[in-house]
């Protein structure tokens, strides 16, 4: 399909695009604030709000005692208090809510809140949480084959540990919600969220009102990346509690340093592994144990952990394998979804294993990757039993070597490294096989509501949300293509729980897949009515050679009898006829992904509808003296099936690469032992800027890989290309290997920022001298 511009592009570039904080709400909303905990672990002993409530400009101050119904929320487990009622579990956890006319009034009131808190020693690290047995849920396991035999058959065994760090989503638009009370219990919430349905349901539970009283709407988000999958709900609830109390609209919008301080990140993982392989480098056995830092509450941690387990072997067939995973509770904000959702952590670990095997055997890493790839007809079953289909690994591997001129550049780099003592170059290839579907099977459902108006224009509502990824553009194109009309005739509405109920979060990269199918389903139903009316219309003039309904097609803004092509009518001229014939031009649509099932107890099933594949090759130059890394070039080939919108998909891949690169080499999220986030703002937490992107950046979509089972032959794009950024980390490691002429393994920190590169390079350089 031809590339269309982002449906909001003209609004973006003129500043007309409205985000939550830009909406005109009447009457003017009060500002909602939280008084938050300054300590990471303790108890709320007592408090007195009397003086604070008297401050001029303060309309309400609420404690947990003011919560009408339930004070526990959560995406899966309801374990998180909206307001602290006893235990305090992280810095920034809300104790009280304040509705104020100005920030000034809030700051004055905040000073007058009297509160007694008992401070306990917090648990921050995974190690500490493990020693205290703070397990969130049962350890997850996936197992296949016989490890013992596998290790016995191996020529060599390597054991080790890996670590990958937290990452802040850093959506440009911070969390924001406005709650507007209506008649009786009615409440309209504008919320920057990937999950309006969950916002609706949780708000209903906390307020003790029926879900049908609450309408949640989101036109667009200023970025989300998983950070608004579950964690926007609490801010909508804050606004709703204050709005119902004051009977006035209330807006909660987090300042950047507050947002970064109190919201969850990508889970840090500590992983231990043991791998057995033969002389060629083929893996015979592998044992992997993940430990994730879940933060203070459950959030989506178990699902994230499960996805790490599902990606623990990435693109490689491992006959004998055991994967274990646990999530540990600590006193930092509950960690949450972030593009990749555990997948990147799982894949990083196995790619380290592959790299270590290659170095041990003095072979090129890409050779070890190649011989371990899943096969097409054998060696094609994942550890959890799913058959790997539409496997494009070999194809992409060959193509990316050619595209990146891998072998020649590898030799050039070696020459360069011999000539330069303090400047070293490195190159690395990272493959990805990424499973698409929510691994919680029932979430793989979507709804849509499509209207056709008598002038031939179409209005699409669907349950997905627009966060910049271009979902609405794709839905517009899907509806236009299915109706055979120009996409300008189709408009996609703001996502609204009153239009499409019970939607899943726009997450797991499934947005276009499932909502696209739901939109198509709605369009198909409307087309049945149109076909009935229009074939009758054609036949009213023809006595013989009647037009059959099955021969009616929708194409180029016409409805045509393809057997009698002279019988045709313009789409917009046809719609009044349908209306005159008293047939509906509106329909809901529904889709549930077929065949998804997974038995968590046994660790067996078909958790994914399909896999997406891709590979990247990155070359870097590292200045060993300053730790400065220059990303010289990146080549990517990625599989999105038949792209729904080529330029948008390439944009997703480029953006994901740079975000992955940020995680791997730049973004260093640090907490101190007291649980204070010491990198809580862009002053110290550095996401990639324009000069951090590759100097040469070639992104290509894999061609001729239509995936017929999905909407218009396409595949998901959101998360899988995030993995490509890891190749920058491995390229840096490759460069550091060069210091010792590939004899000493660099202990490269994750993320590989200048601070760690300098220290490691210093060690290896000193070793060379002595």
């Amino acid at each position, binding site marked *: 399909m031809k590339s269309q*511009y*982002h449906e909001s*592009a*003209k*609004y*973006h*570039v*003129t*500043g007309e695009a409205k*985000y939550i*904080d*830009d909406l005109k709400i009447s009457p003017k909303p009060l500002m909602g604030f939280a008084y938050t905990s300054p300590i990471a672990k303790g108890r709320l002993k007592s408090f007195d709000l009397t003086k604070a409530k008297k401050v001029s400009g303060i309309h309400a101050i609420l404690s947990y005692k003011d919560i009408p119904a339930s004070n526990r929320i959560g995406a899966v487990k309801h374990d998180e208090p909206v307001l602290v009622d006893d235990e305090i579990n992280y810095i920034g956890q809300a104790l009280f809510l304040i509705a104020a006319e100005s920030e000034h009034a809030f700051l004055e009131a905040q000073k007058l809140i009297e509160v007694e808190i008992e401070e306990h020693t917090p648990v921050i690290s995974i190690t500490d949480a493990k020693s205290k047995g703070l397990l969130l849920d049962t350890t997850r396991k996936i197992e296949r084959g016989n490890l013992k035999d596998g290790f016995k058959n191996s020529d060599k065994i390597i054991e080790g540990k890996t670590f990958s760090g937290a990452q802040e*989503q*850093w959506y*440009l*638009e911070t969390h924001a919600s406005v709650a507007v009370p209506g008649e009786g219990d009615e409440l309209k919430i504008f919320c920057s969220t990937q999950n309006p349905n969950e916002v609706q349901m949780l708000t209903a539970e906390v307020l003790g009102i029926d879900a049908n009283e609450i309408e949640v709407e989101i036109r*667009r988000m*200023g*970025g989300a*990346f998983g950070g608004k999958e579950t964690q926007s709900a609490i801010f909508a609830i804050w606004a709703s509690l204050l709005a119902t109390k004051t009977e006035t609209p209330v807006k909660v919008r987090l300042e*950047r*340093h507050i947002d970064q301080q109190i919201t969850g990140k990508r889970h840090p993982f500590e992983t231990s592994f043991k791998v057995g392989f033969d002389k060629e480098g083929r893996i015979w056995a592998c044992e992997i144990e993940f430990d994730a830092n879940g933060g203070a509450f459950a959030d989506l941690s178990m699902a994230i952990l499960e996805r790490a387990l599902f990606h623990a072997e990435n693109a490689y067939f491992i006959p004998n394998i055991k994967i274990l995973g646990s999530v540990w509770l600590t006193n930092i904000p509950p960690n949450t979804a972030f593009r990749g959702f555990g997948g990147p952590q799982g894949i990083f670990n196995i790619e380290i294993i592959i790299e270590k095997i290659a170095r041990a055997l003095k072979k090129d890493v890409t050779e070890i990757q190649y011989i371990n790839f899943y096969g097409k007809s054998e060696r094609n079953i994942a550890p959890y039993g799913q058959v790997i289909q539409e496997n494009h690994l070999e194809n992409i591997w060959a193509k990316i070597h050619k595209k990146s001129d891998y072998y020649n550049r590898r030799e050039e780099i070696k020459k360069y490294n011999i000539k330069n003592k*303090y400047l070293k170059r490195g190159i690395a290839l990272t493959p990805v096989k990424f499973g698409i579907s929510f691994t919680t099977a029932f979430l793989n459902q979507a709804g849509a509501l499509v209207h056709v108006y008598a002038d031939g224009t179409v209005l699409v509502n669907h349950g997905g949300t627009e*966060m*910049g*990824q271009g979902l609405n553009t794709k839905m517009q194109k899907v509806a236009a293509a299915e109706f055979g009309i120009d996409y300008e005739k189709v408009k996609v509405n703001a996502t609204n729980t009153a239009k499409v109920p019970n939607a899943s979060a726009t997450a797991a990269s499934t947005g276009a897949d499932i909502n696209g199918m739901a939109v198509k389903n709605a369009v198909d139903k409307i087309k049945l009515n149109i076909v009935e009316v229009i074939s009758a219309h054609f036949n009213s003039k023809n006595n013989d050679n009647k037009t059959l309904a099955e021969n009616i097609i929708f194409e180029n803004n016409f409805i045509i009898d393809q057997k009698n092509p002279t019988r045709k009518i313009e789409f917009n001229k046809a719609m009044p006829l349908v209306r005159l014939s008293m047939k509906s031009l509106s329909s809901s649509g529904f889709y549930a992904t077929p065949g998804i099932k997974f038995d968590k107890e046994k660790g067996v099933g078909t958790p994914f509808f399909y896999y997406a594949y891709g590979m990247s090759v990155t070359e870097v130059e590292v200045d060993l*003296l*300053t*730790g*400065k890394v220059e990303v010289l070039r990146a080549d990517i080939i990625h599989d999105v099936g038949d792209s729904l919108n080529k330029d*948008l998909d390439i*944009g997703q891949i*480029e*953006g994901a690469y*740079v*975000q992955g690169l940020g995680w791997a080499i730049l973004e*260093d999220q*640090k907490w101190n032992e007291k649980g204070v986030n*010491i*990198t809580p*703002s*862009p*002053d*110290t937490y*550095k*996401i*990639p*800027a*324009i*000069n*951090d*992107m590759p100097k040469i*950046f070639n*992104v290509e979509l894999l061609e001729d890989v239509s995936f017929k089972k999905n909407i218009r032959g396409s595949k998901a794009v959101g998360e899988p290309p995030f993995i490509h950024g890891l190749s920058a980390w491995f390229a840096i490691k490759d460069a550091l290997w060069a210091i010792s002429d590939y004899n000493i393994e660099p202990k490269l920190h994750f993320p590989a920022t*200048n*601070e*760690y590169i*300098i*220290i490691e390079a*210093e060690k290896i350089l000193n070793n060379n001298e002595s």
Partner: protein
Amino acid sequence: MNKISFVFRNKIQTIDFKESKFTPNSTLLEYIRSNQKTKGTKEGCNEGDCGACTVVLIEKNDNQIKFRAINSCVMFLPSIHGKQILTIEDLGTLNKLHPIQQIFIDEHASQCGFCTPGFIMALFAQKADKINSSKSELVEAVSGNLCRCTGYQPIVNSAQEISKITDLQLFNTFLREDLIDKINKSDTIFINKDIFKFFIPFSLKEALKLKAENKNAILTSGSTDLVLKVTKRKEPIEEIIDISSIQEIQGILETKDEFIIGAGTKIEDIYQFSKENLPALSNMLAYFGAKQIRNRATIGGNIATASPIGDFLPVLFAYKAKIVISGKNERTVDVNNFVTGYRQTILNPDELIKNIIIPKFSPNQIIKSYKISKRLNLDISTVSAGFNLIVDKNNNVSDILLAFGGMAEMTKRAKKTENFMLNKEFNEENIVMASKILLTEFTPISDARSSKEARSIMAKNLLIKFYQETK
């Protein structure tokens, strides 16, 4: 009194602080976003670190018009007096897009769109200021704009296309010089509201008088650092004297022996000047904040804050610069002696920095500067350095100065290392020995930017790098 005037939305706007909901501590961003019609300027971080709030500031000084991209979140509202502001809404409408806006659409340069107005304004300012800006200059102009969606490639592609625009009228058409001229820019502005006093003097004499009368008042110019006290630490600043409108302390004068830089000169202007004349300074300023910050921040402000990680001091040490201080009397001190401790200087409460003098150096002096930061652009130094070396005919060190930032509570010279190197041959063996002494000379701290171990190695490595580049 109590009023400021500026040009915005094709009109002279006047804010009477007595009547207004704004205070002198309000920011320009708060003012812009308070209007339902100008919500296109976004708050991404409210600390000058993301560029989402970028607007274009048009100034007229000495009959020169200058377009500058600035972060509206780190500018006090009164400081816009006498200037014109352009926001995204001024550029184009849905039916009549500015070419830069059209290019962004064509190149798929927006995804979530939240950062987009900031990027467009930064690029607009760059072109308005220099119509033949190259692609790389345009990319540099947005090195302080963060985008989390695109990975920047389509923005780089847009820069390529924008570089082809040649019609200056597409930019100048927004200038309302007629209105700027109508605003009084000679009588001191004095805003007095609640606890707040805010002064804008237009002469050095007036500024010194105000400073003498208001000893607690804080001097500010670009205020890119000072604003954070209000917006992040939530501490009101009651008395402020904004010296950014004093022409006498702005500009660069080159004489036979020295460069005299007015303390109020914008860092961006010094950067552009230094490209030809002061390479070590240019090398440092290329990575000073981002263009939006350099367009407001001044050399005097950077020095006077006396931050141990300020970018100017180490390189000014290397140039053996002098600082001219105005007060009751005028005095000149070596930059060496200016800072006395952590954010402490020798300035008396009634004094301010007038000029910075960089003596012209002899061809045999090797002057270099270095900055190590986690990210290349828009990041604060982890460690920085300024070095000055003279090697005699026999390859012996006859003069050496090694100044470091980020290694102590203030910018400091590595005197032991200097003493060791002096009169010794400038060779690898001696540098290795010197670098070992250097490791013992500082006891840096660990913080969010780096561990102390890494800082020590960085300082040592910079000496080695200096040798590698100069041997």
